[in-house]
């Protein structure tokens, strides 16, 4: 059937610069570029281009430009190009439209409508280069009070505090499984987390055995509905265990890793046969209700001898704050909430673009809900989905989060350009692929260094902003909405965020 679709991108090659080295041809796994012997020149097939910009950056002559195709339908505010083309694609295949990365629709990004405070006169700002500035954060349950026995100079703590994760900056790497991303990318996340005093999350694809001894101590291992790669050793080698209930990019649905991505190594990490589809059911079939979640939380505490904090990750949806309160009461030590803009390796577009609520509103309502119920100490909140810079992080903390998970930001640090073709397995940047020819392009050491650099830079910026507000410990900003003001927001939005308008 002849396809009626436009190409998405147009490849422009400066023939004066191109010397037919065929580098672009080798770089592009989508097969966009081809050398034509008869003409002795490179030709390209715009229909295949994903817009990942790999060839642009690696062309030694700087001869290539990739830009959105100028072809256009008659402008129509209702029938946008995307709507028309998605429809055509479905008419041609009868399939569910799949996409990658996070929601790219123009929902309001609240981060960009919130401004921070700074000290002037009445309170000195603090210079983090020369004065102490503390970002250390503990993730896990804390008791309301501690009982102490004071005997002369000696103080004994009678209260036992449950296991907590200590991080030196409030940023963790979000769940990205080996299988969804390449071994090198996965390994780079682990290395950067360990060397930067934070944690990476294995996602639901298991943790390769050879990585356990070295990186287990900075791993949060996931238990998802597919239960891939889970055995007692996997659970016990990690720093914490996370039950994945939902994901911001696709709340309420399961997923599957297609068999072609299940290489021998992915398969053995997931403990399934190579080439088989790895199907994750929509729910956990041992969790049909909150008391069942409690059962799984405690099963995992039992399986890890009560030595690891248990996190529960849910997507931020309409009534999630009440649900999260139940999750805390069910025994979770950490709640990870994933917002509307959370990323993914593959999700049906209809779900990604239409389900869930923005993370900024979610953080605020969850923090407030738990405080109102007097159980805020009992768990930590990790916010995920949509963090792009250090200012987003610090705003998340002031709205009530204990830390944030970054996923997309980490991938961009490694080279991702958000072409949204993750599900094809043809990632030219070697990140979201199991093709050894492609994944080999990602140098683990360099990728790990880029990630560590990112964490270091953001930490420094957070310290600067914190110092500007006259605060020298991050714990004094947590939930401290005094330091935020809204710009260009409706009254209801300010109410949900619990912040004043600028100038109020």
């Amino acid at each position, binding site marked *: 059937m002849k396809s009626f679709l436009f190409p998405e991108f147009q490849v422009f090659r400066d023939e004066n610069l191109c010397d037919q080295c065929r580098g672009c041809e080798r770089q592009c796994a989508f097969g966009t570029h081809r050398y034509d012997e008869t003409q002795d020149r490179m030709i390209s097939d715009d229909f295949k281009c994903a817009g990942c910009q790999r060839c642009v950056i690696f062309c030694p002559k700087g001869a290539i430009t990739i830009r959105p195709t100028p072809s256009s339908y008659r402008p129509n505010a209702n029938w946008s190009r995307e709507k028309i083309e998605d429809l055509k694609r479905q008419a041609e295949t009868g399939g569910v439209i799949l996409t990658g990365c996070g929601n790219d629709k123009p929902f309001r990004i609240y981060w960009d409508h919130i401004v921070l405070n700074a000290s002037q006169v009445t309170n000195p700002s603090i210079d983090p280069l020369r004065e102490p500035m503390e970002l250390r954060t503990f993730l896990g349950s804390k008791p309301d009070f501690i009982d102490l026995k004071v005997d002369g100079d000696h103080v004994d703590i009678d209260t036992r505090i449950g296991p907590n994760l200590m991080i030196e900056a409030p940023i963790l790497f979000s769940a990205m499984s080996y299988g969804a991303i390449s071994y090198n990318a996965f390994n780079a996340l682990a290395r950067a987390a360990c060397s930067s005093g934070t944690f990476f999350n294995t996602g639901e694809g298991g943790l390769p055995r050879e990585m356990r001894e070295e990186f287990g101590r900075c791993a949060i291992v996931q238990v998802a509905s597919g239960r891939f790669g889970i055995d*007692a050793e996997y659970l016990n080698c990690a720093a914490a265990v996370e039950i994945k209930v939902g994901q911001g990019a696709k709340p309420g649905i399961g997923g599957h890793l297609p*068999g072609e991505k299940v290489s021998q190594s992915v398969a053995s990490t997931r*403990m399934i046969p190579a080439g088989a*589809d790895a*199907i994750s*059911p929509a729910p956990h079939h041992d969790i049909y209700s909150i008391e069942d979640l409690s059962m799984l939380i*405690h*099963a995992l505490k*039992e*399986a890890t001898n009560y030595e690891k904090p248990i996190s529960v990750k849910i997507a931020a949806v309409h009534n999630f704050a009440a649900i999260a309160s139940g999750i805390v009461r069910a025994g979770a030590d950490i709640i990870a909430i994933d917002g509307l803009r959370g990323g993914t390796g593959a999700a049906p577009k209809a779900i990604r673009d239409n389900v869930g609520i923005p993370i900024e509103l979610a953080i605020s309502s969850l923090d407030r809900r738990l405080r109102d119920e007097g159980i805020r100490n009992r768990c930590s909140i990790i916010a995920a989905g949509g963090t792009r810079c250090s200012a987003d992080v610090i705003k998340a903390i002031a709205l009530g989060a204990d830390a944030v998970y970054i996923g997309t930001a980490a991938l961009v640090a490694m080279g991702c350009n958000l072409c949204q073709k993750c599900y094809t397995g043809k990632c030219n940047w070697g990140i979201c692929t199991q093709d050894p020819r492609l994944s080999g392009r990602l140098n683990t050491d360099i990728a790990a260094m880029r990630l560590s650099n990112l964490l270091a830079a953001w930490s420094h910026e957070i310290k600067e902003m914190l110092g500007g507000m006259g605060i020298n410990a991050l714990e004094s900003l947590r939930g401290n909405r005094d330091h935020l003001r809204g710009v260009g927001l409706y009254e209801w939005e300010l109410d949900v965020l619990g912040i004043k308008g600028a100038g109020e």
Partner: protein
Amino acid sequence: MARAELDESVPRWDPMEQAEIDARGIATRELNDRLRDLMKAGIEHVVLKNVCGQRYIGTRLYTPEKKKMEIEIFGTPGNDLGAFLYGHNIRVHGNAQDGVGNTMDDGEIVVEGRAGDVLGMSMRGGKIFIRDNVGYRTALHMKEFEDKKPLLVIGGTSQDFLGEYMAGGTVILLGLGDRTHLANHIGTGMHGGAIYLRGAVDPSQVGKEVAISPLSDPDRELLKKHVGEFVSNFPELNLDLSEIMKKEFVRLSPRSKRPYEKLYTY
């Protein structure tokens, strides 16, 4: 720690390596604390008396050196019996509840009675033998991996959604006592492994991903072996293997390893 008062049918154990816990009134966590302490002390056989609802028995027994323990349970153990089980053996003299063998890795669980819902969910290895019937969603997403091939043999029959999402392993339903298999939605989403039913099943009872076929010779050999294990696990039933094998079996297996291949467009 009193010496176990053992029934004559149970083999005798070296008294230094066995122990008994009276679980009456003991909370789940404390019971599992004690089991863990006993395992660390080198005890290899434990008898739990008066168990009533305590969960996760066997779950806390992971050690990097893979120590093994045998646990005999009198009473009714609570949910998630043997969840994440790492090679231990459990025998229940009575019924079990929901979640037996959840995400079990290795070991053996024998239940001298019935079991509840989601038996053997996501089980990857080891064996479970249930004397009587089981509930909904048995063997859901059961998997297999390399030399690990879980086995589940049920003396009676199961309720709906048996083998949903099943990705590996072997499930055998014997339908003893002329029980007929009434479950619906058997094997929906199945993409690996095999279910053997003794007796008939109507195509309307199975998911669209499932093929029903007669037994091959290797199937028959496999069944003989596993049903033999079942028979010897329940000597009190006085079962005759060859009698059982006389009745017709059917094999349920996935039509494809990739049931959702054509679902998406890019």
